[in-house]
C-alpha cells in the first residue's frame, strides 16, 4: 500500500457528496422563500443514493499522505451511515412543525454535510482526520437540533448538545495530544508500531487513550456520558432525532472499532475493562431508566443508550467474532431504529405532533398496519427470534461468551429482560388499551419507511448470510 501516495480516487464518495452539498445549497438559496425545501430534500436524497453507489464501486487503499483509508470496514460503515441519513431525509420530507410548516430547506443539506463528516470518520487513518470528521458531523447536528427556533425545547436541545459536545471534543483533543506526545505521530500505522514497541504502555499513553475513549463514548451516549441524550432526543425535531439515533452513532462506532482494534489493539487488556464497565452501565441504565418514561422519543433515547451498550459488548470481547457481531448488531439496529422513528414521525393528531406513549392507545384497532409494524420493531428490539434484533443480540452474546466475559453476558441477559418490559408495554398499549381519538393518516413517505423497515426486520434472516460475510470482510480489513 502506497501510504504517501496521493490516491484521490479513494475519497470519491466524500468528494462527490461535498460537491453535491455545496451545489444544492447554492441552488436552493436562489429559490423564493419557502419553496426550497422540496427540491433540497429530493436532491439530497438523490445525492445520498448516488453516494451509496460510489461507495460500492470506489477503489480501496490508503491515500492523502496516510490520513485517509478506504477498506472493507470503511465501506460497511459508510453504507450504514448513508442508509441512516437517507431514512432521515425521507422522514424529514413528511415532517411539519407546530406551525404546520416544513423544516427549513437547510435541514436535508445539513444532514448531508453531517453524513459527509460521518463518512470521513469511518475512513480516518489519522487522529486528525478523525477529529475533523467528528467536528463536521457534530457541528451540523448542533444546528439540526435547534432547527425549530420557535420551539423552546428544540433550542434547549441544540444548546445542551453544543455545550456538552464541546466539552467532549475538548477531552478528545486533549487525549489526541497526549497520544501524539507519546508516540510522535498521529497516523494509525505509526501508532501501531509505537504501541507494539513499548513493553509496558507508558502512563501518558494510557491517560490519552482514556480521554479519546471518553470523547467517543459521549458521541455514542454511553453511561456516564449519556446525560444529554434524553433531553436532546426529545427536543430535536423527530427526523433529526431519527438521524441522530442512526448515522452519527454508526460513525462513532466506526471510530471506536478502528482506533481501539487498530492502533491501541496491542494494549487491549488495558482498555477492555473500561469498555466492559461502560457497556454494563449502559445496558443497565438504558433498561431501568426507560421504564417510567411517558414520552416515546425519550424512551427511544434510553433504548439507544441500552443498545449501544449491547453493541459495545462485541468490542469488549476484543476478538474477530466480536467485531463481526458488533457490525451485524449495528445493521439490525439501523433497520429497527429507522422503522420505529418512521412510526413515531407518523404520530400526528389533527395535524399536530403527539409523542406520548398513551397516544398510541388502541392503535391496533384504528390503524392495524402501523400497529403491526411498531409491534414488530418492539419485538425486534427485545431480541425475539426470528426478527433482526435477535441475530445481533445473539452474536454479541456469543462473542462475549467465547471471550470468557461471563459477567458481561449475565448482566446483558438481565438488562435484556428488564428492557423487554418497556418495549412490550408499547405493544400492550396499542392492542389492549381503549382507543383514543384516531391518529391522522400518515404521509406516504413515512409508510414507505416503516413498512419497508418492518419487512426488512422480518426478512433479516434471509439476508443474514451476505451481511455476515460482509461484516466478516470488514472485520478482517480492520484487524488483519
Amino acid at each position: 500500500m502506497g501510504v504517501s501516495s496521493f490516491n484521490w480516487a479513494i475519497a470519491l464518495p466524500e468528494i462527490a457528496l461535498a460537491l453535491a452539498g455545496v451545489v444544492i445549497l447554492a441552488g436552493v438559496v436562489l429559490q423564493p422563500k419557502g419553496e426550497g425545501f422540496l427540491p433540497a430534500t429530493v436532491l439530497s436524497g438523490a445525492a445520498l443514493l448516488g453516494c451509496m453507489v460510489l461507495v460500492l464501486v470506489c477503489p480501496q487503499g490508503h491515500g492523502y499522505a496516510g490520513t485517509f483509508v478506504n477498506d472493507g470496514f470503511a465501506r460497511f460503515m459508510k453504507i450504514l451511515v448513508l442508509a441512516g441519513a437517507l431514512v432521515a431525509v425521507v422522514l424529514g420530507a413528511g415532517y411539519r412543525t407546530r406551525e404546520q410548516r416544513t423544516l427549513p430547506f437547510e435541514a436535508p443539506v445539513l444532514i448531508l454535510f453531517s453524513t459527509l463528516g460521518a463518512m470521513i470518520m469511518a475512513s480516518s487513518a489519522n487522529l486528525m482526520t478523525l477529529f475533523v470528521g467528528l467536528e463536521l458531523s457534530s457541528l451540523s447536528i448542533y444546528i439540526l437540533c435547534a432547527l425549530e427556533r420557535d420551539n423552546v425545547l428544540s433550542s434547549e436541545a441544540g444548546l445542551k448538545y453544543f455545550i456538552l459536545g464541546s466539552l467532549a471534543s475538548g477531552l478528545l483533543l486533549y487525549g489526541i495530544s497526549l497520544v501524539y506526545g507519546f508516540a510522535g505521530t498521529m497516523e494509525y500505522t505509526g501508532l501501531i508500531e509505537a504501541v507494539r514497541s513499548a513493553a509496558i504502555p507508558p502512563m501518558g499513553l494510557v491517560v490519552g487513550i482514556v480521554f479519546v475513549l471518553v470523547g467517543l463514548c459521549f458521541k455514542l451516549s454511553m453511561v456516564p456520558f449519556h446525560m444529554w441524550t434524553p433531553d436532546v432526543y426529545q427536543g430535536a425535531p423527530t427526523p433529526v432525532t431519527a438521524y441522530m439515533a442512526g448515522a452519527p452513532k454508526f460513525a462513532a462506532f466506526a471510530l471506536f472499532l478502528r482506533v481501539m482494534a487498530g492502533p491501541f489493539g496491542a494494549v487491549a487488556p488495558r482498555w477492555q475493562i473500561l469498555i466492559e464497565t461502560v457497556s454494563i452501565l449502559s445496558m443497565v441504565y438504558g433498561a431501568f431508566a426507560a421504564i417510567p418514561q411517558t414520552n416515546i422519543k425519550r424512551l427511544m433515547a434510553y433504548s439507544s443508550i441500552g443498545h449501544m451498550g449491547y453493541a459495545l459488548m462485541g468490542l469488549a470481547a476484543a476478538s474477530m467474532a466480536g467485531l463481526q457481531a458488533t457490525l451485524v448488531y449495528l445493521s439490525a439496529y439501523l433497520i429497527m431504529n429507522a422503522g420505529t422513528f418512521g412510526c413515531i414521525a407518523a404520530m400526528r393528531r389533527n395535524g399536530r405532533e403527539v409523542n406520548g406513549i398513551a397516544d398510541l392507545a388502541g392503535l391496533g384497532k384504528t390503524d392495524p398496519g402501523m400497529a403491526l409494524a411498531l409491534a414488530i420493531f418492539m419485538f425486534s428490539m427485545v431480541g425475539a427470534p426470528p426478527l433482526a434484533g435477535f441475530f445481533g443480540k445473539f452474536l454479541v452474546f456469543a462473542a462475549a461468551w467465547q471471550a470468557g466475559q461471563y459477567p458481561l453476558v449475565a448482566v446483558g441477559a438481565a438488562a435484556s429482560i428488564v428492557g423487554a418490559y418497556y418495549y412490550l408495554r408499547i405493544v400492550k398499549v396499542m392492542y389492549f388499551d381503549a382507543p383514543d381519538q384516531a391518529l391522522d393518516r400518515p404521509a406516504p413517505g413515512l409508510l414507505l419507511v416503516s413498512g419497508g423497515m418492518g419487512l426488512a426486520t422480518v426478512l433479516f434472516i434471509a439476508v443474514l448470510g451476505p451481511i455476515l460475510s460482509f461484516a466478516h470482510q470488514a472485520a478482517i480489513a480492520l484487524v488483519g
Partner: protein
Amino acid sequence: MPTLPARLAQALWPVYRFLLNKWYFDELYDFIFVRPYAVLARALWKGGEEGVVEGMPLDAVRATRESAVQAVRLQTGSLALYAFSMLGGLVVLLTVALCG
C-alpha cells in the same frame, strides 16, 4: 355367661380402653407425624411458597420500579450536573485504567 365380657371390661377398664382404641396408635401417629408435618407444610406453603417464592418476583418488580424512578431522578436537566457527571465518569475510568 353373656355378662362376662361386660364385667371383664368394667374390671379392667383402662386396659379395655387401651385395647378398644387400638393401643391409641392412630392418636400417637397423628401426634408424632401428621400434626408436625401439617404445621411444617403450612409454614412452607404460606411463608415459603407464597412469601418467598411468589414474593421474589414481586420484590424484584418493586425493586426494579423503585430503581427506575431513582435512575430517572438523575436526569434533572441541569447542564452543570450533566457536565459534572461526564467529568466524574472520566475520573473513574482513569482510575480504573491506571490502577486496574
